[in-house]
Structures are given as structure tokens and as C-alpha cells.
């Protein structure tokens, strides 16, 4: 973008957008920053719902078929039929009504005890919400939108209207997904993987519109993310500020760029599979139903061909956030910048050829199984490169233990554990034993639920830029430490359960004699999980309180180099007073060239020129 045009742009921007009115500013906004915030709030809302579902799941596993505390009926009432508490009376009243007038609670949790169909629906929807409506909206939708134009020095996205549509279509899909909880027959309940043929025919489960809406919602979500990813890629290719070469982009931007490419290419495959599933259910086609010549394994192939790139779609932005935070708070350049970029690129390529590792026990030619085993192990190499580069970044740095830094460190340590358990599962002989056990649950929570640490790191790090106020550091640190402790107390013991043979997706572990000795572990996990849930209230309070009463943030509270920090906090419409010119890479911390220990990307030094600085 030429300087003259940029300067002219500023003028227009201020004049045209100064008085946009409430609706255009906060609701149907085309400003990437507002859309980013909208995605963030949507994701946080869904996080609360998904988190509460997790609490219900953990209650059921620790205290199978017992009524929930507070809203459940008392033991005496269940044993004797004599209402004791006021809740007992309410239950008695509700349950005495005729079938047609029963409400959602009496159908799904009579007396406050979770039923088996509800349990299935809970773990399915928990995973679906967390993956598609928490991590993706927050990381890709929220921070992707907010950060891409700011970090590359652009005034907005390439297609602002498309961007706005992407949010509203995304919200629509979220609403469809939540609505599916309340349709007759219940929501989708076959796991977030929705394996056919279980899902391909209504008669197999009794879930009718729940599963249909699940498919429809994800197809709609696919449209939303298609619009988003086209926008991100175009913006990054076309709208970088002068001097912002690809290899001067911050790693968060790189990670979002690669993520967007994966999204663009992976989600349509899911869409095709979802459409076929929907046709099987509604039009009587036979893609996944053996009775018409269909092939249930086809679903698994299509789903995981999308699914494994998907897990990297989730984790790459988290890796990007971690790279930013670690470098800034070690006051050191990131170790191996190009190595990081190439590692992410390698991950992106490899993630297309490993999907079979989810299907080792689905019946597979041993030769193909071995091939998938090898490719899967190879993908651990770039992941390890990233980890060692993070450690190299920390090494010898003057580390500042701020809240985002604590979360960044927590992410790295959890990622190491999740990555290592991945290697075990990747080897076919081991996986035959641990497949579909709690070992898998432990693994993917260390990697996927571990992303929550990167989300917190991102929120606490960019909060000043997003909302113009600082979050409270003391509360932040308490939250970080408690979350780390309870997270590990929750998920680490799941490895033990898994090796002990505890299956995933079971309603009542006590139905299995051999699991009885493991039940105390389940109770321990659940209590840790409740503590983990309660600890999040600290964050919720800190977030809401800081929004309105936090200390005002100046432009660059963390003394960071990247372009978003040269804008006011929060940046106005159009972002930059003048489009910056970029002279160097994003991680020049503790540079001997300047007195301060940071050197913004757009600062011109006497000794360097625009072209010479590398």
C-alpha cells in the first residue's frame, strides 16, 4: 500500500467512521476489532456452558446415578417417597404431571439424577462446543480477527463485510447447536466423532432432530469459517504494511495464516461428510449404511481426514500465542524464528497424512497401519522442535513472571505431556490396548484442553489492547496457579484409569466389576475438576471487573515490539494514525543497538535502512 494512499486513508477513515451509531459500532460492525471481540464473547459464553457440562459429566462418573447436589432430590425422598426439602416438593410436583406436560429436567434428569441418554448427550455436546464453539471462535475468530490486521499493519481485513457475515453466520450455527439440546429425542449423543452407522439412521438411537441439527449447525459453522479463512489469507497475502515481509511477521500471525489454510482446505471435507450423513438420515441414501451397499468406515476416513488437521487448527494459534508471550517476557528474541515457521509448515503438511492413527482398531491393513504409525511419529518431530525452541527462548532470559507468562509456561509443560502420550498411542501395538480408554481422554485433554492455557495467556496479554484496561495481576496469578494445579490433578490420573482399562464414554463405571478398585481415582478426578471449575470464577470476576474498572492501559504496557502495540489502546477505527513502515523482525528484545530492552518493528534507527535490516 503506497504511503500517499495510506495517508489519504486515515483522513477518510476518521471522517467517515467517527459517528457510526450504536448498531454499526457494536452489533453489525465491520471493524475487525469489534468482530474479534464479538467472537471472543461468544466463545467465552460457550466455554461456560461447555464447562458446566463437563462438571455434570464428572459428577456422574464420581457418583454414578446419584442426584446432583442442590437441584437433586434428597435421598430420603427417593427411598421413602416423603418430600423433605423444598426441591423434593418441586420434583414431586413436576413428576406428578402427565407425560405431555413434563419439562426438560424431568425427562432428562428425573429427581436430579443424570440419565444415560443425557450422559451421552452431555459428552457429545461438551466436546462439540469446546472444539467448534470455544477454541475455534476464541482463537481463530477472536484473536485471528483482532490481531491479523494489527500485527501486519493494515487498517482492516480485506473483506470487512464478509468478516461481519462470518460472525453472524457463526453465531447462527452456535444457536442451532444449543437449540438442538431441547428438541424431542434429545441432542446428538454419539460422541463428537458421530460415527456411522450409529448416527446414520434414526432407528439406531432414537435421536432424530438432535443429530440433524448437529450436522446442520456444523455445516453452517463451516460456511462461517470459510468466510473467515478466505479473509485471513487474503489479508495476510495482500495487505501487509511496507517492510512487513513474510519473515518479519510475528509467529502468532504465521500460526493464524497456516491455520487459515488448514481451515480452508479441511472444513469442506467435513462439510461433504456431514452432507452425506444428513442425506442418509433424511433422504434415505446409503453412504454409511451397509444395508444399501454403504460403508461405515468411509465416515471415519472422511471425518478424520478433516479431524487431524482440525486438532492442529486448534493448537497452532495456541502455539503462536505461546511464542509471543515467551519471547516478550523472557526479553529475548524467540529462539529459531525460521525454525518455528518451518516447523509449523511441516506440521500443516504432515497433518494431512496421519488421519489413520484414529482408526488403528477399526480394521485396517497392517501395512497401512504401519504407514500411519510412521507418519504420526514423524509429526512429533516438528512439535518437538517447537518445544525445544521455546525452552531455548527461556534459557538465559530475564524472565518476568506475569500472568500471561505463567499461562504460556503452563501451556508448554502440558503440551509436552500431551505430545509424549501421543507417541505411545501412535504405536499400533500399544494403541490396540489403550484405544477408547481414558488414556486417550487424558492425551487429548493435555493437548486440546491445554489450549485453554494459551487462551488465558492471550486474553491476559492482549486485554489491554482489546479493552484499553489492564487486568488485575494478583488475581491473574492466583487463577493461573490454581488452574495449573487443578488441571493436572484432573487430567493426569486419567492416564492411570486408562491403563487400568477404564473405557471412555461409559455412563456408570460401577457396572464393571474390574473398575471398582479404580473408583477412588474417579472421585479424586471429579473433585479436582470441580475445584478447577470454581477457580475459573476468579477469572470471570477479574475479566468483568477489569473491563469496567481496570487500570487504564497505555499503548505498550508490556514493552513489546510488534505493531499492535504502537496503536492506542484500544485502537481506533482504522487502527494506525499512519501506516507504519517496518524495519525489522518482531522479536528484537534486549538489542544492543538501543538503550531500552525492546525495539519496535517500526522504529527507524540511524544505522539501518528499510532494506538493510535483517
Amino acid at each position, binding site marked *: *500500500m*503506497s504511503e500517499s*494512499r495510506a495517508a489519504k486513508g486515515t483522513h477518510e477513515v476518521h471522517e467517515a467512521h467517527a459517528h457510526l451509531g450504536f448498531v454499526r459500532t457494536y452489533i453489525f460492525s465491520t471493524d475487525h476489532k469489534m468482530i474479534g471481540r464479538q467472537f471472543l464473547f461468544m466463545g467465552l459464553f460457550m466455554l461456560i456452558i461447555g464447562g458446566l457440562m463437563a462438571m455434570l459429566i464428572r459428577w456422574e462418573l464420581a457418583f454414578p446415578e446419584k442426584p446432583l447436589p442442590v437441584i437433586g432430590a434428597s435421598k430420603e425422598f427417593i427411598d421413602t417417597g416423603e418430600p423433605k426439602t423444598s426441591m423434593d416438593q418441586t420434583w414431586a410436583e413436576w413428576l406428578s404431571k402427565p407425560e405431555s406436560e413434563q419439562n426438560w429436567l424431568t425427562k432428562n434428569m428425573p429427581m436430579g439424577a443424570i440419565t444415560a441418554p443425557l450422559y451421552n448427550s452431555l459428552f457429545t455436546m461438551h466436546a462439540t462446543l469446546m472444539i467448534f464453539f470455544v477454541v475455534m471462535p476464541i482463537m481463530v475468530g477472536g484473536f485471528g480477527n483482532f490481531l491479523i490486521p494489527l500485527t501486519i499493519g493494515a*487498517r*482492516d*481485513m*480485506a*473483506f*470487512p*463485510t*464478509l468478516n461481519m457475515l462470518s460472525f453472524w453466520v457463526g453465531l447462527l450455527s452456535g444457536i442451532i447447536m444449543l437449540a438442538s439440546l431441547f428438541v424431542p429425542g434429545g441432542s446428538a449423543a454419539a460422541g463428537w466423532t458421530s460415527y456411522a452407522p450409529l448416527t446414520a439412521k434414526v432407528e439406531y438411537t432414537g435421536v432424530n432432530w438432535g443429530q440433524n441439527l448437529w450436522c446442520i449447525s456444523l455445516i453452517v459453522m463451516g460456511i462461517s469459517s*470459510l468466510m473467515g*479463512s*478466505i*479473509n485471513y*489469507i*487474503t489479508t495476510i*497475502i*495482500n*495487505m*501487509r504494511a*511496507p*517492510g*512487513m*515481509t513474510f519473515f518479519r511477521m510475528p509467529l502468532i500471525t504465521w500460526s493464524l495464516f497456516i491455520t487459515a489454510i488448514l481451515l*480452508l*482446505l*479441511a*472444513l*469442506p*471435507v467435513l*462439510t*461433504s*461428510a456431514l*452432507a*452425506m450423513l444428513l*442425506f442418509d438420515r433424511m*433422504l*434415505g*441414501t*446409503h*453412504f454409511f449404511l451397509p444395508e*444399501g*451397499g*454403504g*460403508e461405515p468406515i*468411509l465416515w471415519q*476416513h*472422511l471425518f478424520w*481426514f478433516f479431524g487431524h488437521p482440525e486438532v492442529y487448527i486448534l493448537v497452532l494459534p495456541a502455539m503462536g500465542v505461546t511464542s509471543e508471550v515467551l519471547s516478550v517476557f523472557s526479553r529475548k528474541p524467540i529462539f529459531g524464528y525460521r525454525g518455528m515457521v518451518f516447523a509449523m509448515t511441516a506440521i500443516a503438511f504432515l497433518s494431512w497424512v496421519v488421519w489413520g492413527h484414529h482408526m488403528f482398531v477399526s480394521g485396517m491393513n497392517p501395512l497401512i497401519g504401519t504407514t500411519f504409525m510412521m507418519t504420526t511419529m514423524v509429526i512429533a518431530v516438528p512439535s518437538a522442535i517447537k518445544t525445544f525452541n521455546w525452552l531455548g527462548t527461556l534459557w538465559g532470559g530475564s524472565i518476568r513472571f506475569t500472568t500471561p507468562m505463567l499461562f504460556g509456561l503452563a501451556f508448554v509443560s502440558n503440551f509436552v505431556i500431551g505430545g509424549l502420550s501421543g507417541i505411545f498411542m501412535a504405536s499400533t501395538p500399544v494403541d490396540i490396548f489403550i484405544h477408547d480408554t481414558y488414556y486417550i481422554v487424558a492425551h487429548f485433554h493435555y493437548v486440546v484442553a491445554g489450549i485453554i492455557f494459551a487462551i488465558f495467556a492471550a486474553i491476559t496479554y492482549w486485554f489491554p489492547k482489546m479493552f484499553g484496561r489492564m487486568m488485575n495481576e494478583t488475581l491473574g496469578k492466583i487463577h493461573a496457579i490454581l488452574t495449573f494445579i487443578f488441571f493436572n490433578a484432573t487430567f493426569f490420573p486419567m492416564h492411570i484409569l486408562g491403563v487400568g482399562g477404564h473405557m471412555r464414554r461409559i455412563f456408570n463405571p460401577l457396572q464393571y466389576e474390574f473398575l471398582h478398585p479404580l473408583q477412588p481415582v474417579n472421585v479424586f478426578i471429579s473433585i479436582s475438576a470441580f475445584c478447577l471449575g470454581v477457580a475459573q470464577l476468579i477469572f470471570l470476576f477479574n475479566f468483568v471487573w477489569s473491563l469496567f474498572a481496570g487500570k487504564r492501559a497505555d499503548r505498550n504496557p508490556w514493552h513489546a515490539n510488534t505493531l499492535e502495540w504502537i496503536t492506542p489502546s484500544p485502537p481506533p477505527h482504522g487502527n494506525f494514525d499512519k501506516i507504519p513502515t517496518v524495519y525489522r523482525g518482531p522479536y528484537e528484545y534486549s538489542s544492543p543497538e538501543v538503550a531500552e530492552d525492546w525495539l519496535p518493528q517500526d522504529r527507524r534507527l540511524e544505522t539501518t535502512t528499510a*532494506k538493510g535490516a535483517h
Partner: protein
Amino acid sequence: MPKETLDSVIDSIEVESIGEGPPPPIPEPPFGPDDDDDGDFMDSQMNNAYVGMVLFIGAEVMLFAGLIGAFLLFRFGSAVWPPPFQPRLPVFVTGINTAILLLSGYTMHQALRAIQSRNYQQLANKLLITACLGLTFLVIQGYEWVRLIRFGLTPSSGVYGSTFYVLIGTHGTHVLGAVIWLLILLFRVRRRTNSPDRLYFMTRHYIGVKICGMYWYFVVALWPVLYTLVYLS
């Protein structure tokens, strides 16, 4: 500049691609970025809308890859294909239909050439012919579908019918979408040819026609692949 009244999706894409993006490579030369790329930043830009359309087509390819993958699994997984007692597909009529669609790709190419020589009458004519050929393709497809259903090939009569209708139907839907887009463009081009403000058309609507052309090429190029796989193999 005249105030724009038609507010369609295409319009917004164009406005954005000019309003917020890099400067469009117009008025001269209207095609592509200029070639003096010295390897430095930002010198070699493509228009946002082109990039966006290329990416969109990439996503579409993956959508069809999923469907074609499913088809191939069934096609090469079964000993006899088509399965016994299923009607045969109309290879000959569809072959002619293929030619019609390919021809429309050529007329679209001519339409885009007409922009370059600033011959708006030609542009409008060629777009009209392209749209008509597209419609003809759809009508013949629809007619053949009705016949096939009469012969007992339905989406629910086993995987043969399932893959056929979903794969070919998805392509048909795409052609339909492209035809509608084309007709909207045509409507606007015709309005422009009567107005004196031709340069305005040049800068403002050229990109819309060009990206619609890219999309048209995609649906045309996809068809022979599907025809070969589904009808001939």
C-alpha cells in the same frame, strides 16, 4: 460518480476489494499485477477479490474431493459397477451436454476478452450466451434426472443412486449458482452499456465479471472430471 443502487453480495465484494484493499490495477493495464517484481514487499499485489476467489475455489475443490473420494471408494470397491438391476446412465446425451458446458467456458473466455478491448456490447452478448448455455446444461440434466427416476434410480436405491445424485446434484447446484450470478452481472452490464460512464464501469465492475469468470471456469472444468468418473468409468 453515479450512486450505486443495486446492493447485492457481489457489489459488496467489489466495494471492499477496492475500498479497503490495495489499489486496483486499473485503469491501465486492467489485467493482473504489473510484472516488475523486484522481490520487495507489496510491489506484486493481486487484487483481493482474485485472491479470495482462488481460495474459495480451493475450498470447493476440497468439498468435491470428499464427495469424489466417497464415489471412488464405492466404484472401485465393488466387483460389478453399476450394480445389477440398476438403470444405465445416459452416456450419449450427457456427452453432448458436456460439449455444451465446455462451449460455455469458451464464450466466457470471449466475454473476458471483450472487457480487455472495452467492447461492452460484446461483453453483454457473450455473458448472455454463456448464461444460456449454462441454463441449457441444467435443463438437459434435469430432464435426464426425471427419466432416471422413472426408470427406478433414486437416491435411496443403494449407493449407486446415492453417489450419482449427490455428486452430480452438487455440481448442478454450483452451476445454478453460477448462472444466477452471471444473470445479475449481465443485468448490470446492460445498464452500463447504455450509460456514458464507461470508465466507471471499467474500474468498478470489471473485477466482478472477472471473478465470476474464474468461478465459471471452475464449474466447467470440474464437469469433464465428473463425467469421466461417473458416466464413463
